[in-house]
Structure formats: C-alpha cells, structure tokens
C-alpha cells in the first residue's frame, strides 16, 4: 500500500508532464484502435458471406459475362438447391462521389437465397410488380435519405443511357453483420433494355449465385460446375462467396497492409514520448534513488518503483483510450466512413491489442531508466545535480 502510494505521488509530482504523456498515450492508442478497425472493416463483406453460397463467374475475368442459359444447366447439377443471377450495373447517381453499388438480379430467386434481407410483405409485392422498381437497403436509404416512392435517375457507365428507377422497397438486415448498403433491381428490365438497344449484350449475366444443399459438398459442387463448362466459349470459375468477396479485398491488399503497418508506427512514436518521460523523471530523481539505496532499499526496489510509475501512466492512458475508441470510431464512421464502409464495428480483439500495447509501452519505456538506476552507485547519485 505504501509502495503504491509512493508511485502515485511520484507520478503526480510533475503534473503537466504526466498529463501530457497520458494525453499522448490516449491519442496514439485511440488512433491505433481506429486504424485496426479500418483494416477489419475491409473484410466485413467477406465475413457476412454464407458458407453454402457459391459464386460462378467467367474464368477470364469479371469483365466478361456468362450466358443466361447456364442458369438451367447449373440448376440441374446434383447438390444445387437454387441458382440466381447477379449483374454489376456500375451506374452513377447524382455524381461519382455519391457512390453505391447497384445489382440487376432475377428477383424472387435471388432473394430466396438471401434470407438475411428482410422485406415488408407489402413493399415486396410492390417491388415485384414494378419492372423498374428498386429495392434499397436500410443503410443505403439512411445514407442518402431514400424513401419508398422516390425516383432514382441513374446514368449507366457500362450500360450507356439514363435509367430511371422507383424505390419500391427498403429491406432491413437480419442482424448487425448484414450489409444493406446496396440497391437491387430486376434483371428483366436490364435485359429488355439491352435487347432493344444493344442486342449483342443481351441474355448475358455477370455472375451466378449458387445455393448448395449441404455445406460439406461446396467444394465438390464448385468443381462439377466448372467441369460442366470447361472448353466452352465461356468457361466458369466457381468459388465460395467468401473467397469471391476476399478476392476484392486482395486487390487492395497492399493498401490495407500499409494501413496496418502504419498503425504500429503510431505505437512507436508514443513509445519514444513515454520513454523520454520516464528517462527524464528518473534522471531528475537520481539523488532520491541514491538516498533510498543509502537507507537500505535494494536495487530492485528502485527499479520496481520506476516500472510501477511507468505502468500506472501507460495503463491510465490505455484505459481512457479504450473507453474513447467506440465513440471515436462512431464519429469517424459518420463523418467519412459511411460512403466507404458498410459496417464499422470495433472488434473485441482490438481492445485486447490496445491493452497489450499499453502494457508493452509501460514496460519498454521504463527499461532504460530501470537498468540505469539499479546500477547507480550511491555516491554518484548523491553527488548528482538534476
């Protein structure tokens, strides 16, 4: 008890310095938590993927379509419960900055495979009835203030021309992990449009989403699908929905890796600051440490005193940073993150990393002063002038 009191008193002696160090620790550890959350948010789409869904795309690349008649062939394969088409539209609403994803899907089949999207029955019926109807996710609707009945003019970049859709339904996510930041409309509308304007582009789709009866047979079914279309004009590449989503993350992996490594640099920066604080503190108190030793306290007592003070400062900073991380993350998400990320949740592992980093900082910052003061000769210490 006496020991702890001494440590706290010591820490509060240079109040301004301790306060500044704690402030630095709070900023650095909160920034570290935020960056870790940014890195994890890239993977949110892959985390939301179902283990029983497969995605078949053209083996050359996503830019090439697959013929629509593959749908019936895939449906006939053993182990397949359902097939739906999904087609990236890539249109621009308002301007390039207000980006959101639009997909042309074959409506009833597609949503039957995505039970995580929950429709209000009336809106669902309206959406199915209107060929130019659009279903907008709750996150997207909140982002741009879309309401049922709104008209959405969208300019095609891949499919030239202006397209006007009407919001007929706003679907909700089943749980927190569901991403509802995209718009769906009817593939039939797109196909009719292409038949009239660009007949050669019609009857093609971007990808097939395949629902498999048994998760254990996923790899098996994927191989069968690819074998079915081997050596044809449009060969397929079938992978799990998770692998498909991860392939997008892999494309920008370099940047994610840069952000991840930079998040450790902020720890190094604050380590330099904390180590400096402890070094200065210890240097100023050399005479005191010598006195303590002269009174009979062993070298380890002085070392423990320094370590404990460093840990008290680091843990205080860490605790405040951990408490601040959720509101900071929420603020960041509201300010800039909403247009980039669908989901932005601080993972429990991030708090653990922050706590570990705070402890490591406390330990490392105290290292050099501990060794120095333990080696200190009483005479030199007493002679020392701060």
């Amino acid at each position, binding site marked *: 008890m006496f020991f702890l009191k001494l440590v706290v008193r010591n820490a509060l002696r240079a109040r301004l310095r301790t306060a500044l160090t704690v402030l630095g620790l709070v900023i650095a550890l909160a920034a570290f938590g935020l960056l870790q959350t940014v890195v994890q948010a890239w993977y949110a789409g892959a985390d939301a993927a179902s283990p029983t869904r497969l995605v078949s795309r053209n083996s*050359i690349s996503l*830019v090439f379509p697959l013929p629509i008649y593959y749908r019936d062939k895939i449906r006939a394969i053993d182990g397949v419960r359902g097939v739906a088409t999904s087609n990236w539209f890539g249109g621009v609403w308002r301007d390039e900055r207000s980006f959101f994803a639009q997909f042309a899907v074959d409506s009833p089949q597609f949503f039957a495979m995505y039970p995580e999207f929950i429709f209000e029955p009336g809106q669902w019926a309206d959406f199915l009835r209107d060929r130019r109807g659009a279903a907008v996710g709750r996150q997207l609707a909140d982002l741009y203030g879309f309401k049922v009945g709104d008209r959405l003019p969208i300019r095609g970049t*891949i499919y030239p021309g202006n397209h006007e859709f009407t919001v007929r339904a706003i679907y909700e996510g089943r749980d927190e992990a569901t991403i509802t930041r995209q718009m769906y409309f009817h593939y039939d509308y797109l196909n009719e449009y292409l038949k009239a304007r660009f007949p050669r582009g019609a009857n093609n789709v971007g990808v097939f989403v395949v629902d498999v009866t048994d998760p254990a047979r996923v790899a098996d079914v994927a191989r069968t699908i690819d074998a079915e279309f081997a050596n044809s004009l449009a060969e397929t590449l079938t992978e799990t929905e998770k692998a498909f989503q991860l392939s997008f993350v892999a494309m920008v*992996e370099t940047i994610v890796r840069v952000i991840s490594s930079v998040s450790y*640099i902020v720890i190094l*920066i604050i380590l*330099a*600051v904390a180590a400096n604080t402890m*070094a200065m503190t210890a240097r100023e108190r050399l005479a005191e440490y010598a006195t303590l030793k002269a009174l009979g306290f062993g070298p380890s007592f002085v070392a423990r005193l320094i370590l404990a003070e460093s840990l008290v400062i680091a843990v205080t900073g860490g605790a405040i940073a951990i408490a601040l991380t959720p509101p900071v993350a929420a603020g960041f998400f509201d300010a800039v993150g909403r247009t980039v990320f669908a989901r932005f949740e601080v993972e429990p592992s991030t708090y653990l990393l922050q706590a570990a980093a705070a402890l490591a900082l406390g330990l490392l910052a105290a290292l050099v002063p501990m060794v120095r003061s333990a080696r200190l000769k009483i005479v030199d210490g007493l002679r020392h002038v701060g």
Partner: protein
Amino acid sequence: MKLPLVYVARNLWVRRLTTALTAGGMALVVFVFAAVLMLEAGLRQTLVATGSADNVLAIRKGAATEVQSGIAREQAALIESLPQVARDADGRARVSKEVVVLNSLPKRSDDGSASATRSNVPIRGVPPMGLALRPQLKLVQGRMFRPGSSEIVVGASVARQFAGVELGQSLSFAQRQWQVVGVFDAGRTAFDSEIWGDAEQLSQAFRRFGYSSVIAQLDSPDAFEALLAAVETDPRLTVEIKRERQFYEDQSRALSNFLRFLGLTLSVIFSLGAVIGAAITMYAAVATRTGEIGTLRALGFARRSILAAFLLESLLLALSGGLVGLVAASFLQAITISTTNFQSFSELAFSFALTPGIVVNSVAFALAMGLIGGFLPAVKASRMKIVDALRAD
C-alpha cells in the same frame, strides 16, 4: 542581443537520450507523412508519363475507362479520316484502334509459383501503328509479337508480379494458347502493367466486334481544339475525346485522392503525439535550466532572446527529426508497390517518388511540429522574473 546558435545546439547535445527520443518520434511522423505523399506522387508520375503530349484518346461517351468503352468500327474509321490527324510518309493515318480487356491472373508467390491471389491484368490488342505511337516501349527480352499470330508480349511489372508469364510460357484464355514471346519495358508507365498482343487476333478471340479505344496522333499539338470541335459537331460520333495525358491523369484521380486523404489524416493525428513529446522535452529543458535563464537575464539578455533561444532549440530538434525521417523515407524509392487501381479495376505497379515539393513540405511539417510543441515552454521561459529564476536553484 541574440544567444549564439552553439548555445542552443549544445543544450540539445547535453541531453542526448532525451533529444534522440523526441527527435525519433518526430522522425517517424515525418517518415509516414513523406511516405504516403511519395506513394501518391509515384502513382501520378506513372500515369501521367503513360500519355504522350501529342496523342489523343477516344472512348465511348459516359465510359470511365477503356475497358468499359466500346467504339464501333464505323466510328473508328470516321476518327481516322479527320483532317487534324497526323499521317505518315505513306499517307496512312497515325491512328491506333485498340481492344482492351481484363484477364484475371494468379499473382506470383515468392518462389515463383502461382499463388491463390488473383488480380486483373489489362490485355491490350494493338495494330502495328499502335507500336509506332508508343516509342517509349522497349523490348528487354525476346521479340515483338508477330501481327496475325497468337503471340503476346508482357510488361516488365507483369513479368515481376504474376506467375506463368515468363518468356516461352503460354497463357490459356478465350479457347486459345497465347505464347509469351517477349518482355517489354515502357519506362515506368502504366503500360508496364499490361500484356500486349495483336488487335485483330484478340478481338476475334474475345468476340469483340468494335474497339475499346482509338488513339490518334495530332497533326500539330495545337490542333486539339479543332479536333474536339469536329468530333462534337458530328452526330455520328458518340465518343469522348481527351488528350492522352489528361485521360491517364484522370485514371489516377480516385486512388490518388484516397492516398492523399489517408496520408494527411494519419500525419495530423500522429503529429499530435510528436508535438506532445516536444512540449514535454522543452518544458523539462526550461525547468532544469531555470537558474541559467535567470543568469542570462541578469547578464542583459532580453526576454525576446530567451524566447528565440528556446524556440530555436525546439525547431532544431524538430528539424533533425524531420531530416532523419526524410532520409529514411528516401530509401523507399527503391520499392515498387503493386495494387488495384479502383478506377480501371486492374493491377498497376508504381514506385515511391520523392519530389522537391515533398521535401519542402516534410521539412515545413517538421518545423511546424517543433514550433507548436516549443511555443508554450519558450513563452514560460521568457516570462520568468530574474529574481525568482535565480532563486530557483
């Protein structure tokens, strides 16, 4: 009367550990600041260098990239016949009608085998004129593809980053085997991240009837306005004409804005830590030298001189940190980064580039950190009363 610079520098030297730790924190901040800006500069340099000043590029109206675009053969012929287009000695228009598609290839793992990660590589079909329009393209291995054959040449970055594209190997796509017969170096441009083959062969294999883009050389550099007017008034042409350089600069915009935003946000947050470090150090410097400050004042040094001396000490501290960070960042120039450009949806390799602007900005950033961190302690030092300060020890 001013305090000599040696006095300021000596003070930093006396407390070496503290100086090193504080400057080290600032060096890390400047390193991050410079590194991200260098990445952005490298990306822009690569894409801007890809375009030639006297070339123009036509893509379909509304399309953002060559891959999304489609230009019918009749329209390409119309562009070819415009009077502003340059012609060679035989009277042929210096126009290249090209097909660009994306092919997803496995990336190369460290031992050279194919890894599970795939990324999109642009495959560009070019006619013989296309090569004449890009004199920067140099073969470093093998030979050029023969027109009318299923041969391809790969860019140097593709050869480095992807598996199965070595000289003599072949790629299998669109129901054909494409033999790699050469590796080219396009001098750090976006072409280095592409695979080139014969335009007609590739468009047949991919069953494309039109072209993706048409590149034309201008008769004279200032003929651009006239060409633009000719294209816009012709109702048969539904294309958008841009200078090639402008087109490639636009391709870099999204990624470049993202990198700049990321770099500045991170640097500002990180600098808070370093500024606090500088403030702690300078407050301690003021506290331990209280008696000294009193003596200096008693000797006749003005408050201004004391303020200047402490500010200078903080600036010197920051400058040394900033220079260390900048030197460390300059070594990054040897590294090439390869990532997907969001806009073109394809892999692009580029290097960190240190520009004079980045050097100036980094030094200014470091000095700003030193100024902010050292300001309050310096004010405190200059406000001390002589008697109190002398009594302190």
